[in-house]
């Protein structure tokens, strides 16, 4: 398949891996920010092509993983109300709240629908004028423009029966929180390519300069990731800390101006809590004041954030890159995709799910 196979070429991959091995003279620890990159790394075994001195740790870029449990509970509670249609992305439906997930709510009779775009939720609202349609809007900067467009169009059309339950988060504040941690061990970042497609990469320049870390805008195919690693270790070996963009076939410095304009119109930056990580200042998006009427928290009552329960799950440490899924004693035994203890085992972008799906686990056959 064109535009895919050329980025999965085995020979080119080995050439890049060799170049990385020749460049590296000492140990380096890099973080790939996005869960999509984590899955590609584990699926294609990219980490196994790298020299032992290069460690890849997995970042917080799994949108459903970092959505606070209270928002899932709120979505389930709203879905249970008479006359409500709750729409969300497919992999959000399996995320466990404190008492089940949205699929379980559907089996109890709630009208819960998986949509492929927030604009589908808009269409559901148009077709069901007597029903309250709620779109559970989660994600990073990647899903924000489409979610913003749904709210924008609803306001333009005066569509009074659509509202958004928003739990949007932003990547750079999370990277800053990871770098500020006293025991941080991340020395370079593979930035999330699709986030940069929307946002551009100018916002990473002060991060790279302040924390003295290289940040390389990286795509999702094996060669993209190996190129990102190569550029990162080349900078580290040379003592440089710059923002580089080898993913230029997709990402421009200033991002997508149209997407940024609609995000600026609909959203404002607010503090957010990240599941497993905690509260991070200015790390999320909420609806702007002009869109307050479309906020499901205004329509159905606000989400009250409790102190996060600490159970056996170590997904918070996995999301911060402090440990690998296989470091968890419950991994693959008490915690599986069928019976997850945490969201990182559920989502298509969760690191634990990637390890479970693609790596051999002795306990699994028992």
């Amino acid at each position, binding site marked *: *398949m064109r535009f*895919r196979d050329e980025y*999965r*070429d*085995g020979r080119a*991959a*080995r050439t890049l891996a060799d170049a990385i091995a020749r460049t590296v003279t000492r140990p380096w620890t890099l973080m790939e920010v996005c869960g*999509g990159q984590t899955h590609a790394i*584990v*699926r*294609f*075994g*990219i980490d*196994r*092509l790298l020299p032992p001195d290069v460690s890849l740790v997995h970042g917080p870029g799994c*949108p*459903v993983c970092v959505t606070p449990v209270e928002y899932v509970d709120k979505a389930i509670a709203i879905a249970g109300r008479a006359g409500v249609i709750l729409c969300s*992305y*497919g*992999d*959000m*439906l*399996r995320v466990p709240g404190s008492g089940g997930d949205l*699929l379980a709510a559907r089996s109890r009779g709630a009208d819960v629908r*998986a949509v*492929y775009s927030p604009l589908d939720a808009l269409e559901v609202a148009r077709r069901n004028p007597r029903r309250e349609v709620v779109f559970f809007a*989660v*994600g*990073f900067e*990647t*899903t924000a423009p489409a979610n913003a467009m749904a709210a924008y169009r609803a306001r333009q059309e005066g569509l009074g029966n659509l509202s958004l339950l928003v739990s949007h988060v932003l990547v750079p504040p999370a990277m800053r929180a990871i770098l500020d941690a006293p025991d941080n061990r991340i020395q370079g970042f593979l930035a999330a390519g*699709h986030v940069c497609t929307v946002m551009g990469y100018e916002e990473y320049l002060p991060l790279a300069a302040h924390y003295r870390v290289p940040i390389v805008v990286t795509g999702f195919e*094996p060669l993209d990731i190996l190129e990102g690693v190569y550029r990162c270790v080349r900078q580290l070996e040379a003592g440089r800390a710059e923002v580089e963009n080898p993913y230029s076939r997709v990402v421009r410095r200033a991002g997508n101006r149209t997407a940024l304009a609609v995000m600026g119109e609909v959203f404002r930056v607010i503090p957010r809590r990240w599941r497993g990580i905690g509260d991070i200042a200015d790390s999320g998006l909420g609806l702007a004041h002009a869109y307050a009427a479309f906020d499901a928290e205004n329509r159905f009552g606000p989400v009250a954030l409790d102190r996060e329960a600490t159970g056996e799950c170590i997904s918070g440490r996995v999301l911060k890159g402090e440990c690998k899924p296989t470091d968890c004693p419950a991994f693959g035994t008490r915690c*599986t*995709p*069928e019976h997850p203890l945490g969201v990182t085992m559920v*989502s*298509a*972008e969760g690191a634990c799910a990637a390890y*479970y*799906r*693609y*790596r*051999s*686990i002795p306990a699994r*056959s028992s």
Partner: protein
Amino acid sequence: MSRDDDFRLACPLPAGAGDTVQLAHGGGGRAMARLIDALIRPAFADAELDRRHDGALLALDGPAAFTTDSYVVRPLVFPGGDIGTLAVHGTVNDLAMCGARPRYLSVGLILEEGLPLAVLRRVVASMGAAATASGVRLVTGDTKVVERGKADGLFINTAGIGQVVAPAPVGPAGVEPGDAVILSGDIGRHGMAIMAAREGFGFETVIESDCAPLAEAVLALFAAGVTVHCLRDLTRGGLASALVEIAEAAGRAIGIDEAAIPVADHVLAACELLGLDPLQVANEGRFVAFVPGAEAERALGALRCHAPASGAVVIGAVKEGPAGEVTCRGALGVERIIDMLSGEQLPRIC
């Protein structure tokens, strides 16, 4: 005058109700008799049905295979087929995977009140055509009607009986290290066709289901004298589930090569877009065959003469290794584990 008009005039129901299924059609009275006589029996066209008896009387020589399956799909009609073709091909294929020549099918129809008769007519016509193409007879059946909201338009159950032609038992127990794993063609068409039709994705190319009868291709293996150890048609859960099920049941390890697995470009593009793994996407006209490595070429030659298996290829082999483990060598030469789908296949967020 169209056949729809014929039917409406003949049906003793209130005006305006003649173009949809009514509860009376399942009531055991005249309305039901007319529905069966005017619409279903002509489509199935079998002498056994014309005897209007409580069951069919069949002749069989030697060992027989017997299977049943129920069919629910939304939408009822999709590119490449409909629920009727699925219901015939699916059961015919299950019989073929037992090493049997499909002979007889029963048909149970559960109709939802309000189902357009035009849809029912299309579906039963598809079933008749699929049965003819598969060399199988639809010899007995049943029709029920349930209230609106109690079914999703139309559910079908088919059960089938086939004449076993395999000289030795076919199944996971026969799988041995060194067996070649043959895949009959490209994967993922049915699942993506259904998803595209259901969700209204505006893909530039229409993806058609691979729904097809596989008995002729399978019987060709036996006719060619190939020692067939195991057969499995790929349905829900896709190639991944079929291989894991066989590896677990056989207590063997299987290794496959991702580069050898054919996936059509437009199917692959749709999977990439939605974050789905083609190995886990449903099929309705593909199967895997386990044959001794030395007989793989002969098996491929026999399979490729039959349309649904014209793209047959060897994708891997049975290995010594942990029981139940299926590994896949990826594009970069690194092996990964292949696992069954967990729960429902859901598209990713971004």
